[in-house]
C-alpha cells in the first residue's frame, strides 16, 4: 500500500504540532499524535474503555479529522472482550454527537421541580455556590443529610471520587441504583455459599464447561461482551439448558429450553440438589476438603466448636476425621466424614451435610413439578446429566432483584456448583482477578454500612434481614419525603436533604416514578444537583444541572480490569476534545473540594489515595501539574506500570489467565474464600448470624399462582433488548434504528391472545395491578413465551421534553410498585401482575 507524499507530510505536520502543544504544557490536551497513528489511513487510533454498559470493554476509537469515526475492539484488551464490541459500543459515536446533549451548566430560573425552566450558568460560579452550601451544611452538623444516588456509571467509572467526596462531607448516605435494583440479592445469595457474587468478581468458564445451566439470565441477549465473547464462540461445545419463561436469545441457543413458571427456579434447583445428594452423584472429595459440609453441629443447631483461626483470618470449626477416629479442626483433618452422628466429649453431634440432606429431603422432583410446571422426569434427568457431565456449572447469573426468593436462588446455585466441584475450577465458576483479591480480603466486611447510615436504618425498620448491606435506593422515598425519621446516635439529623444525582435516572429507571416525583418535589429537599450528559427524564426535577463529559471525551483514571481472570490495568484516553462546556466528574469533584477549602481538599485526597492505593501527595501534585493526566501518571508510577505503554495500548497485562486460575485453586486449597469459615458454606454462618435457617429452603414468589390468562391477568417479565442498556440508550437514534420492532411492544403468547380475541400489532392497555398505571401500547404475538406471561423491554418510554429521538415503547418502571425484598431489600421487579385489555 502506497503512502502518498501528502499523507506523509500531513502526518509529519500533525506530529510536530502535537509535540509543540505538549511542550507548551497545554495540560488538558493529550496529543492524539502520541496515540497510534496509522499511516495506512492517517487516522489516529485512541485506546479507551467503552462507557455504554457496565462491562467496560477495552475499545479503540478511530479518529480522523478530529471526528470519531468508528469504535473497534482493542486487540490489546483481549483478556477482557477478545477484541469485540457490540451494537451499543459501536453507537457510542451517537452518544458523543447526540444533538440533545447538555451543553453547559444550567440553574433553575423559575417554575417548580419537574418543569424545564432553566438558565445558563457558569461553572466557576456554580462551583463556588455549591462549595459554600456543602461546607456550611457540613459545619452545621447536617453532613449526613447530603445524599447521593448514582447510576452504574457512578460505580463503574467514578467510585473512588464519589466515595472520597461523600466521606469528606461526612456522609455514607449513598447508593447506586444497581445495588438493590440489580445485583445485590444475587451477590448476597452467592456470598452465603462461596463468599462473593458481584458481576465483576466471577465468570463462568465458558471456554471449558461441558454442561451449562443458565437460570434467570439472558447472557446472549443482554450481552455483557466479556461474557458474550466467550459464551458465543463456544456454543456447541457444551450442552446448554436454559430456564426462562420466555424464549430469550439465550433460550433460543439452548439444547433444551425449559419454560419454567416465573420465580420458581429455586424449586427446580432444590429438586436438582435432592436428586444429586440422594443418588450420591456429588464430588465427595471436593465437599470434604473445600466446603463446611463435614462441620460438626450440635443438637441445638449451633456449630459444635468454632474459633478464630488467626492465620487465615477466618472461623475454624471441627469435623470428624475418619482416619484419626476423632474430632479435629477441619484444616487438620485427613479424611473428614461427610455424614454421620458422633459422640464428642459426651455430646451428640452430626455433620452439616447430614442435616442439609435431611433439609432438602422434601424437595423431590415430583414436589418441584407441581410448583414449576416442569415434568419431574425432566428435572431428574437434567440433575443426573448435570452431575455426571463434568465439568458442569450453574451460570453466575447477572441481574436478579426480581423475586422475594432471588437471593436464595443464587445461594442454591453456589451449592449446586459445589456439589459437582466446579467452584474455582476449570470449566466451572472462576473468580476474576478482583474476585480473588476480594476473597482473600473478606471484601463484604468493608461493604457494610455503619449504624449511622440512613439507608441501612430504613432497611432495618422494614425487617430486612441483611440490612447492613444498606444500598437500597428505595429508602430515599421515605427519607426525602420525611416519612422516615433519620437518626444518628439516637438524635434526629437536623436540616433538609441535599441530593446529588450522578448518572442516574430515577424518573425512568427506578420503580414507581410517581413516588419519585413526590420525593423530589418534597419540601424536605433543599437542593437537587443532577449530573448527566443528556437532559434525561429526571433532569427537569433538578435545581442545578451539571453536564458531564461522555466517556469518549474523558481522561479517566487507571482502573483494574474487572470481570475476567486476568490481572491488568486499563484506562480511558480522550478520543475527542469535549464538544461542549462540560466537565468530567472527577474534575468536578476536585474543583469542588478545592473551592470548599484546604482542609476538605486534603481530606479528599487522603481518602482518594487510600482508595486508589497511591500516595495522596503524589496524586495532588499530579493533578495540579497536569490535571487528570497527571493524576493518572501518579497512579501508573505507584502501580509500577508504564504510563506511555498504557497510553499506546490502552491495556497492560500484569498477570495472565493461567496465573489467576492458579490463584483460584489456591483460594480453595488454603480455605481463603470470603465466607466466615473460608470454605464453601452448606451451613451458612452469615445466615446463622442473622438469625436465619443456615441451610436453604423454599419460599414461593409473591405472585405465585396468581396469574390467570383467561381473565387477562399475567406475570410481567422484562429483559434487555440486545441493542439497548437500561434507559441510557433508549434515545440513541442509531441504536433505535437497529432494534427489532418487537421490543417497543408488549409480548404475549399467540394462543392466549387468540382466546382473548387479541390480534398481532393491535393496541392494548397494559395495566399494573401494583401501581394501577395504565399504559397504551402495541401487542407483539409470539410462540416463544409462556401462556401466562407478558414481556416488556425496559429501556424505553422516555418522556423528557428535550429529547428529539423519543423511542416510544413502554415505560416499564411505571408498572412496578416501590417494593423491597425480605432478605436483601431487592426491588422485586417481577413481583407484579398486569392486566391486558384490548382497546
Amino acid at each position, binding site marked *: 500500500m502506497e503512502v502518498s507524499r501528502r499523507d506523509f507530510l500531513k502526518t509529519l505536520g500533525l506530529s510536530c504540532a502535537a509535540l509543540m502543544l505538549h511542550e507548551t504544557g497545554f495540560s488538558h490536551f493529550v496529543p492524539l499524535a502520541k496515540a497510534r497513528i496509522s499511516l495506512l489511513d492517517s487516522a489516529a487510533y485512541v485506546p479507551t474503555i467503552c462507557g455504554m454498559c457496565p462491562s467496560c470493554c477495552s475499545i479503540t476509537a478511530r479518529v480522523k479529522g478530529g471526528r470519531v469515526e468508528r469504535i473497534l475492539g482493542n486487540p490489546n484488551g483481549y483478556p477482557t472482550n477478545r477484541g469485540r464490541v457490540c451494537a451499543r459500543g459501536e453507537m457510542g459515536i451517537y452518544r458523543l454527537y447526540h444533538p440533545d446533549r447538555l451543553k453547559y451548566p444550567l440553574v433553575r430560573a423559575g417554575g417548580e421541580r419537574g418543569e424545564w425552566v432553566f438558565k445558563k450558568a457558569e461553572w466557576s460560579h456554580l462551583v463556588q455556590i455549591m462549595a459554600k452550601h456543602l461546607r456550611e451544611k457540613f459545619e452545621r452538623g447536617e453532613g449526613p443529610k447530603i445524599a447521593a444516588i448514582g447510576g452504574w456509571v457512578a460505580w463503574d467509572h467514578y467510585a473512588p471520587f464519589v466515595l472520597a467526596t461523600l466521606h469528606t462531607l461526612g456522609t455514607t448516605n449513598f447508593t447506586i441504583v444497581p445495588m438493590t435494583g440489580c445485583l445485590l440479592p444475587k451477590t448476597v445469595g452467592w456470598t452465603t455459599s462461596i463468599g462473593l457474587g458481584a458481576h465483576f468478581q466471577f465468570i463462568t468458564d465458558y471456554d471449558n464447561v461441558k454442561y451449562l445451566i443458565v437460570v434467570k439470565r439472558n447472557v446472549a441477549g443482554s450481552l455483557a461482551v466479556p461474557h*458474550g465473547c466467550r459464551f458465543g464462540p463456544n456454543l456447541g461445545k457444551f450442552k446448554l439448558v436454559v430456564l426462562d419463561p420466555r424464549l430469550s436469545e439465550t433460550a433460543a441457543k439452548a439444547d433444551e429450553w425449559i419454560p419454567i413458571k416465573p420465580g420458581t427456579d429455586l424449586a427446580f434447583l432444590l429438586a436438582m440438589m435432592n436428586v444429586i445428594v440422594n443418588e450420591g452423584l456429588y464430588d465427595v472429595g471436593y465437599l470434604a476438603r473445600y466446603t463446611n459440609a463435614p462441620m460438626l453441629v450440635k443438637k441445638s443447631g449451633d456449630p459444635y466448636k468454632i474459633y478464630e483461626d488467626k492465620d487465615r483470618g477466618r472461623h475454624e470449626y471441627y469435623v470428624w476425621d475418619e482416619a484419626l477416629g476423632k474430632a479435629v479442626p477441619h484444616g487438620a483433618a485427613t479424611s473428614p466424614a461427610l455424614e454421620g452422628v458422633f459422640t464428642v466429649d459426651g455430646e451428640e453431634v452430626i455433620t452439616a451435610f447430614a442435616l442439609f440432606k435431611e433439609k432438602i429431603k422434601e424437595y423431590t422432583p415430583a414436589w418441584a413439578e407441581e410448583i414449576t410446571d416442569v415434568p419431574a422426569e425432566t428435572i431428574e434427568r437434567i440433575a443426573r446429566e448435570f452431575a455426571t457431565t463434568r465439568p458442569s456449572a450453574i451460570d453466575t447469573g447477572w441481574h436478579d432483584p426480581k423475586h422475594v426468593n432471588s437471593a436464595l436462588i443464587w445461594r442454591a446455585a453456589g451449592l449446586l456448583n459445589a456439589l459437582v466441584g466446579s467452584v474455582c475450577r476449570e470449566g466451572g465458576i472462576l473468580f476474576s482477578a478482583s474476585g480473588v483479591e476480594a476473597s482473600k480480603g473478606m471484601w463484604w466486611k468493608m461493604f457494610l454500612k455503619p449504624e449511622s447510615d440512613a439507608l441501612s436504618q430504613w432497611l432495618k425498620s422494614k425487617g430486612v434481614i441483611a440490612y447492613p448491606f444498606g444500598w437500597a435506593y428505595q429508602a430515599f422515598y421515605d427519607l426525602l419525603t420525611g416519612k422516615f425519621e433519620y437518626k444518628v446516635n439516637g438524635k434526629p439529623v437536623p436540616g433538609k436533604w441535599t441530593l446529588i444525582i450522578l448518572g442516574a435516572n430515577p424518573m425512568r429507571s427506578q420503580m414507581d416514578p410517581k413516588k419519585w416525583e413526590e420525593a423530589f418535589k418534597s419540601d424536605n429537599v433543599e437542593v437537587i444537583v443532577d449530573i448527566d450528559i443528556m437532559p434525561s427524564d429526571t433532569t427537569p426535577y433538578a435545581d442545578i444541572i451539571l453536564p458531564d463529559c461522555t466517556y469518549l471525551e474523558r481522561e479517566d483514571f487507571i482502573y483494574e480490569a474487572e470481570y475476567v481472570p486476568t490481572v491488568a490495568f486499563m484506562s480511558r484516553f480522550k478520543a475527542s476534545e469535549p464538544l461542549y462546556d462540560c466537565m468530567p466528574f472527577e474534575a468536578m469533584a476536585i474543583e469542588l473540594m478545592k473551592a470548599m477549602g484546604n482542609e476538605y481538599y486534603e481530606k479528599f485526597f487522603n481518602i482518594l489515595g487510600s482508595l486508589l492505593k497511591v500516595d495522596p501527595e503524589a496524586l495532588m501534585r499530579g493533578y495540579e501539574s497536569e490535571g487528570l493526566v497527571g493524576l493518572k501518571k501518579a497512579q501508573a508510577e505507584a502501580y509500577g506500570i508504564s504510563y506511555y505503554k498504557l497510553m499506546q495500548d490502552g491495556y497492560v497485562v500484569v498477570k495472565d489467565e493461567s496465573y489467576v486460575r492458579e490463584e483460584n485453586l489456591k483460594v480453595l486449597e488454603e480455605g481463603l474464600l470470603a465466607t466466615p469459615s473460608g470454605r464453601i458454606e452448606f451451613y451458612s454462618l452469615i445466615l446463622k448470624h442473622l438469625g436465619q435457617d443456615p441451610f436453604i429452603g423454599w419460599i414461593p414468589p409473591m405472585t405465585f399462582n396468581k396469574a390467570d390468562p383467561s381473565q387477562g391477568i399475567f406475570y410481567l417479565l422484562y429483559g434487555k433488548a440486545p441493542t439497548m442498556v437500561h434507559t441510557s440508550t433508549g434515545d440513541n437514534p442509531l441504536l433505535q434504528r437497529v432494534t427489532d420492532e418487537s421490543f417497543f411492544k408488549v409480548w404475549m403468547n399467540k394462543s392466549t391472545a387468540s382466546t382473548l380475541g387479541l390480534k398481532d400489532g393491535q393496541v392494548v392497555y397494559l395495566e399494573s395491578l401494583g401501581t394501577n398505571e395504565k399504559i397504551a401500547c402495541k401487542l407483539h404475538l409470539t410462540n416463544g413465551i409462556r401462556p401466562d406471561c407478558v414481556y416488556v423491554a425496559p429501556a424505553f418510554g422516555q418522556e423528557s421534553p428535550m429529547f428529539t429521538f423519543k423511542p416510544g415503547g413502554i415505560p416499564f418502571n411505571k408498572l412496578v410498585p416501590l417494593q423491597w425484598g425480605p432478605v436483601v431489600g431487592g426491588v422485586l421487579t417481577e413481583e407484579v401482575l398486569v392486566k391486558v385489555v384490548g382497546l
Partner: protein
Amino acid sequence: MTKYGMVIDLDKCLGCAACVAACITENRRQQADKAVEQGLDAVRSLWLRTWAERLELGEYPSVKSTIMHHICQHCEDAPCVHVCPTGAAFKTEDGVILVDKDLCIGCEFCVSACPFNARIMDPVIRSIDKCTFCYHRVKVGKEPACVEVCPAHARVFGDLENPFSEVHALVAEGNVVQISEEYRGKVYYKVPRQFSKEELLKLIKKPLPPPIATIGRDWVKGLGWVGVGLVTAASVGLIIINEINRRRREMVAVKSAKEALKGEEKTEGSREEKEVK
C-alpha cells in the same frame, strides 16, 4: 482464482446486531449523520446494507427461533449486473459485486432486479449503495467490519476457493444452506443445532425469478452492436443509393439540358440562315 464469500453461522449468532451497527459506522456514516440531522423519521427509515430478522418456528412449547441475516449474496450470476445498462454494476475478479459510482445513472433497474433487497439508490452519494464485502478493507488485508466485530464469531469471510480457508471448510462440511443458489450466490448460512436444513430453508428461502441467460449483458450488447451495424449499413447504403440516384438525376438532367440546347441551336441556326438571305 480467489472467490470471496461469507458463511453466517446461525448456530452461534446471538442476535445482538453488532454486525448491523458496524456496517453503518464503517460504510454509511454520512447517511447516518444526515439522518440524525433530519430527525426521528429519517433515522427510522435509514436504509441498511445488512440487517437481522428474528424468525420463529413451531408452537409453544415446541418452538425454536433463529436470526436471518439479510445481506447482498454477491451472486456469480448477479441479476443486478445483467440488467445494468451502463456497466456501473460489475463483478470484480475476486467475485465481489460493486458499483462504479461514476457510471451509475440512477435508473434503478438493478434495485428491482435484486430479489434480496440488497441495493438502493442513495441520494446522499447519488449512486447505488450496497454491501461491498468491505472491499476497501479486504484489499488491505482486513476483514469486513461485520465479521471483525461479531462477539460470537458468527460471520466468517474468506476465499471459497482456498481449500485452507475457514469458509471453504464450513461449506465443505455440508451443514449449510443458501437462499441464492440459483444465482450462484456466495453467502452461506450454517444451520443452527435446533433446526434441520429443511426447517431452516422453509423459514428463510423465498422463490426466486429465474436467472437471466448467461449471455447476459453481452447478448444485449451484441444486439446493440448488431443494431448499430444495421443502422450503419443502412445509413451507408442509403448514402450510396442517394449518391447514385443523385448522379443519375444529374446525368439525366445534363442530357436533357444538352438536348434542349441542341434543339435551340437548330432553331436558332435556321433563323440565322433566314436572316442572312
